């Protein structure tokens, strides 16, 4: 056991939890405003690809990061317009965004770098260091403050719980929802960028490999609250860190535990929590319901 549970594991946990946390906090802004965001996976991919491609050309990861955020916001805008302006089914729209973002980066990298879905290696000096890790932890408390201590946060929650009442009180429901979805694009993109120009040094096809969905699961497990969501992300980060370290090491019964058993933990937990076995996880009341102002 001691081979696994070391200081290195703690750092590894925080590192793997960071992209999850950034995406989950992004999802929080969108979903607290009442817009389901299963597009987190696609938004992360948009950020990851753009950050890697721009960093390759410019040679400066910070420019790459900003470009990645821009791409995340742009793609989130598609989701926002579809869901808010055209009342599209939010899950269907999110699914489309995810499919779009497996295709578009692959096509672009094919055209730009003549490779099927990956960007060229970025030199080690041009990677962003630990900054996103600190940023993610800071953002937990910023998000808490914004959500519970500012007028914007109050409006955001009101719009997600009871848009009619918020509207009657003079809140522009759709504008708040747009901000929520666009913010989710920005944050998820930072999470994605940290994968491509922080933890590794290039973008590869589908490099998020389901992290957007794990982030969503963490958001549900965290009951759509910032601090609990962070704890859930750390838990999921821990399972990922263990599964990385365990490969070939951990043999309590003389044989290795299949890595698949560890990978599955976040998903099983989410189903159990969603069914109400470990405390009730209640979604914002107006989640998924388009708001149409009465005329």
């Amino acid at each position: 056991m001691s081979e696994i549970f070391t200081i290195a594991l703690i750092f590894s946990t925080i590192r793997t939890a960071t992209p999850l946390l950034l995406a989950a906090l992004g999802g929080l802004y969108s979903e607290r405003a009442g817009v389901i965001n299963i597009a987190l996976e696609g938004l992360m991919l948009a950020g990851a690809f753009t950050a890697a491609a721009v960093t390759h050309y410019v040679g400066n990861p910070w420019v790459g990061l900003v470009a990645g955020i821009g791409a995340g916001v742009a793609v989130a805008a598609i989701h926002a317009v579809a869901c808010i302006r055209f009342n599209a089914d939010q899950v269907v729209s999110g699914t489309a965004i995810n499919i779009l973002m497996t295709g578009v980066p692959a096509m672009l990298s094919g055209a730009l770098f003549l490779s099927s879905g990956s960007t060229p290696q970025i030199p080690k000096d041009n990677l962003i260091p630990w900054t996103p890790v600190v940023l993610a932890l800071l953002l937990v408390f910023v998000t808490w403050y914004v959500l519970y201590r500012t007028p914007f946060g109050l409006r955001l929650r009101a719009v997600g719980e009871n848009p009619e009442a918020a509207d009657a009180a003079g809140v522009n429901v759709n504008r708040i929802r747009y901000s929520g979805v666009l913010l989710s694009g920005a944050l998820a993109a930072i999470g994605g960028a940290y994968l491509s120009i922080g933890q590794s040094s290039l973008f590869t096809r589908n490099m998020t490999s389901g992290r957007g969905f794990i982030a969503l699961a963490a958001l549900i497990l965290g009951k759509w609250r910032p601090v609990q969501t962070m704890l859930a992300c750390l838990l999921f980060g821990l399972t990922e860190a263990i599964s990385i370290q365990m490969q070939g090491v951990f043999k309590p019964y003389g044989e290795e535990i299949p890595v698949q058993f560890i990978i599955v933990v976040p998903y099983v937990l989410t189903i159990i929590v969603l069914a109400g076995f470990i405390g009730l996880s209640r979604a914002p009341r107006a989640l998924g319901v388009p708001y149409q102002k009465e005329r």
Partner: protein
Amino acid sequence: MKLLRELFFPLVAVLAAFVLGGIFVWLIGDNPFETYRLLIGSAFSWPDGIGYTLFYATPLIFTGLAVAVAFRCGLLNIGAEGQLYVAAFATAWVGIKFGGTVVDVFGTPVNYSWMTLPGVVLVPLAILTAIVVGAAWGAIPGVLKARFGSHEVINTIMLNFIAIALVSYFTQYHFKQAGDPILQTVPIGAGVHLPRLGSFVPGLPTRIPLNLAFVFALLACVLVYIFLWRTKWGYAIRATGANPTAAEYGGISTGKQIVLAMAVSGGLAGMVGINEVLGYRYRYYDGFSAGYGFTGIAVALLGRNHPLGVLLSALLFGMLIRGGIFVDAFSGKVSKDLVEVLQAIVILFVACEALFRGSFGKFGLLKRSKV
């Protein structure tokens, strides 16, 4: 006139997707007309073009029907991907355990099977396994929704990942031939193979993997139509989807309909395993699905959740998958990922039906689909 109205909107969505996709191709510096000639032109040649188009359409018919049945009950089944994986693996398991699989491992024969059943018993058994296991995996989120009210979308997403991990574990640790570099099971017995259509259709060579599963897919379209519109179960499912409160007052147990719809949906998705394992690869190949479950969402939406529409849009997407290979091979800068981009744009446009209704609605051409 009604048919025209139903066809108009999907056609506009497809056209819009092709225009936007064309602009995208042009922006990355390639010729959109040449790209589309490769993408579509390669689908109509006989026998290869048509044979492969129908082959690629087969799993999409199953997943499209799966998503459509759930939609009719007001449920979004994003879990077809997981359902088809567990079902395909289970089908291969039956084909191995009862098909007399003996493989040669470094010179010594290893017996993976319990017995060798004759084909007349084994083929129906394997087909039934695909359907039942898919249905069982699909019923889980149905039960969770009916019993605990937890949202089927999140649960199906989670079950996809669980399914993929589960079958990958069994493949890797229990059914992989020692020394095989590919993550796949040992082959199923020869007695369970479904015949390729080339054995019946003159001029169609048997190297084209189009097989009997395609005929099952066509049958499934008819059966789903009968089930949804000619049986009391289908009526109850549609009533639940249209208005659960009214259905409940009308004496329909909506919880039961949710479980039933998800089970039928999962069973249909599971039938992908028949095509993949019994008709094509003759083993379970880990990660075989190229997002069939997700493409099924596009197929169902574009087909307006009607079996006939599902069939037509599955043929369209089958054609695109076939054409994508040619785009990859012969076009300078465009890759086959264009197919995914087109698919995503189609879903977005169909989802944003209001976009079209805003401009065309007053002419009475379109009305809201009852999903």
